[in-house]
């Protein structure tokens, strides 16, 4: 299984491409619900049909369906070595995500996936790794962090920069606290704004990049967060000398079908659902420089 984790399956092996109707979701039962922040929950799901495991790669997503409401593209935030348990961290912002966030154990959701190209962790082997997450950008990075922790010796220095709007918006707070205790990685946490009870850093994540310790030409970076945050983070990393083909961003676009048919998620030449969501800054940079692409 360890080999599988470091050489994860691509989406063509995923359940979404099976003989079943590609638009038909499969039932999964909510087994646990954790309130992460005032508007964000983590749902743990088990397949309702026995043997219906969902192998995935860090950075991939599923279309998650609520009966009578609709579907939403949600990244997978669990552990690739535990395909029997599917984990999704959801912020309630729209019709479907509000319905998802209100679910309690026993409820049934529909799942299609996994879809898309995840983080190319193999390309980071033997190199320093910089992980930059903004707000809800951490959940799609967590499966890959687990893999890095499992194969820690395969990577050089590991730097994590995690930012959120306020301390209340930090997800996986307890788990992140355990990462702070680790001696084999460095983690900087920053918030845009905080009250007096916050002892940590204040400011956007890009401000922390000059302080991060990595050998720039020999570094691979995985960045996920709001587009504007990713754009300036990538610029800052490139400025320090990280090769643009080694800076990966997880793009977010409206996704309806996740199969490359509906056209909604197009970003320049890419279908974000199929060619992304994880895409190299080298190809994204010219598009990020133009408004409303």
């Amino acid at each position, binding site marked *: 299984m360890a080999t599988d984790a470091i050489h994860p399956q691509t989406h063509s092996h995923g359940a979404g491409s099976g003989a079943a109707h*590609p*638009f*038909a*979701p499969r039932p999964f039962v909510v087994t646990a619900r954790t309130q992460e922040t005032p508007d964000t929950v983590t749902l743990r799901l088990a397949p309702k049909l026995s043997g219906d495991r969902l192998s995935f790669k860090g950075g991939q997503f599923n279309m998650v369906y609520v009966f009578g409401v609709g579907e939403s593209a949600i990244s997978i935030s669990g552990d690739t070595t535990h395909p029997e348990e599917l984990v999704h961290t959801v912020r309630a912002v729209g019709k479907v995500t509000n319905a998802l966030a209100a679910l309690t154990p026993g409820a049934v959701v529909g799942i299609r996936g996994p879809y898309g190209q995840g983080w190319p962790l193999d390309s980071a082997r033997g190199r320093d790794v910089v992980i930059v997450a903004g707000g809800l950008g951490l959940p799609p990075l967590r499966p890959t962090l687990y893999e890095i922790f499992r194969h820690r010796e395969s990577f050089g220095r590991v730097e994590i920069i995690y930012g959120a709007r306020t301390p209340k918006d930090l997800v996986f707070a307890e788990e992140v606290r355990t990462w702070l205790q680790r001696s084999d990685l460095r983690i900087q946490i920053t918030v845009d704004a905080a009250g007096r009870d916050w002892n940590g850093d204040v400011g956007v994540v890009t401000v922390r990049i000059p302080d991060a310790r990595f050998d720039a030409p020999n570094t691979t970076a995985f960045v996920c967060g709001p587009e504007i945050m990713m754009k300036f983070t990538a610029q800052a990393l490139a400025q320090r000398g990280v090769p643009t083909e080694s800076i990966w961003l997880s793009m*977010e676009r409206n996704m309806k079908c996740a199969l490359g*048919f*509906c056209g909604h998620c197009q970003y320049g030449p890419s279908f974000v659902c199929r060619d992304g969501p994880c895409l190299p800054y080298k190809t994204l940079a010219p598009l990020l420089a*133009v408004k*409303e692409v």
Partner: protein
Amino acid sequence: MDTLKVGDRRVLERHDFPSLFRALQAKGYQVVGPTVRDGAIVYDQLSGVDDLPVGWTDRQEAGKYRLERRKDEALFGYTVGPFSWKKFLYPSHERLWTASRDGPSFVITPEPVDGPPLAFLGMRACELAGVSVQDRVFMGGPYVDPGYAARRRKVLRIAVQCGQAGGTCFCVSMGTGPGVQEGADLIVTEVLEGKRHYFLVQVGSSEGAAVLSDVPLKAAAPDDPAKADAIVSRAAASMGRALDTDGIHDLLLKNLEHPRWEIVARRCLSCTNCTMVCPTCFCSNQEEVPDLAVEKVERWRRWDSCFNLGLTEMHGQAVRKTNLSRYRQWLTHKLASWHDQFGTSGCVGCGRCITWCPVGIDLTEEVAAIRTVPPAPATSEGKK
């Protein structure tokens, strides 16, 4: 009757044309093709020759389409209308599945894809190319669209080579016509010579040959192939538009901030007409349609358009808020990034988007403007 092979040519006289309908119907095909309705030549079910646009032609210009009487009784004496064959293979609205509540869970029933095989009668060369572009979209990637694939595999394609071009045609520029190269089961050329009216029929596939086995045919004259070529050449020489495609991929993608986008955006109404009439545009939306009690649910797919704000909406905000960005997305996708995605242009040169644009925006003119007008140098005074 001898057995026909691919490439064989035969003559079908005009008075024998009804037998082609009968042969298709006997083989179980439902014939769809051109017919006059609401002042346009549209594609719909046909029961016989009388449903065809006998003696009609169309006159097209940017933002203008008019039917006119021909001096002859040609069956296929027009170019292309507002419809394309897309609506039969990829319906404008389609139920994908139904679901019913089952305790805390639900049961999904995928929509069965049935219906008779269709015979597309009167496909133009550009339209064959349009279908082959959509084949790549719906059947050529890692996923196959089940509805499209099921319908597409049953279609018989009867192509008719163009003897005239419309005012907005530019298939020659796109390399898709007017002669039919491949992808047809039968290739028909309509010949009107004084009092004689006949069709030169070339076999394109064994399915096409099978249909002809019950149709009265004559041997083709030695000069018939040359006659067909001359008819196609006449159409090629009368193209109403031209598009210089040299280096068009980089030309457009390197000019995303060209001032021309703002000029065309002032005219564009974001009405979506160009994407609805386009034979290759494929964007769609999905809708969850529950009954009142939310016990049964239907999932529908409907055509969408890159000109709709909702296409790029995330968290209540559209990514492409301006007409400029939406027109730019349409044109750069159609003519440039389509190559990256599908290894072909998304444009087949049919000219529908020019004809059916209510304000007459002409993509050939827009590309020419981007090609010839140098980008304005950045000034401190800003874009205005």
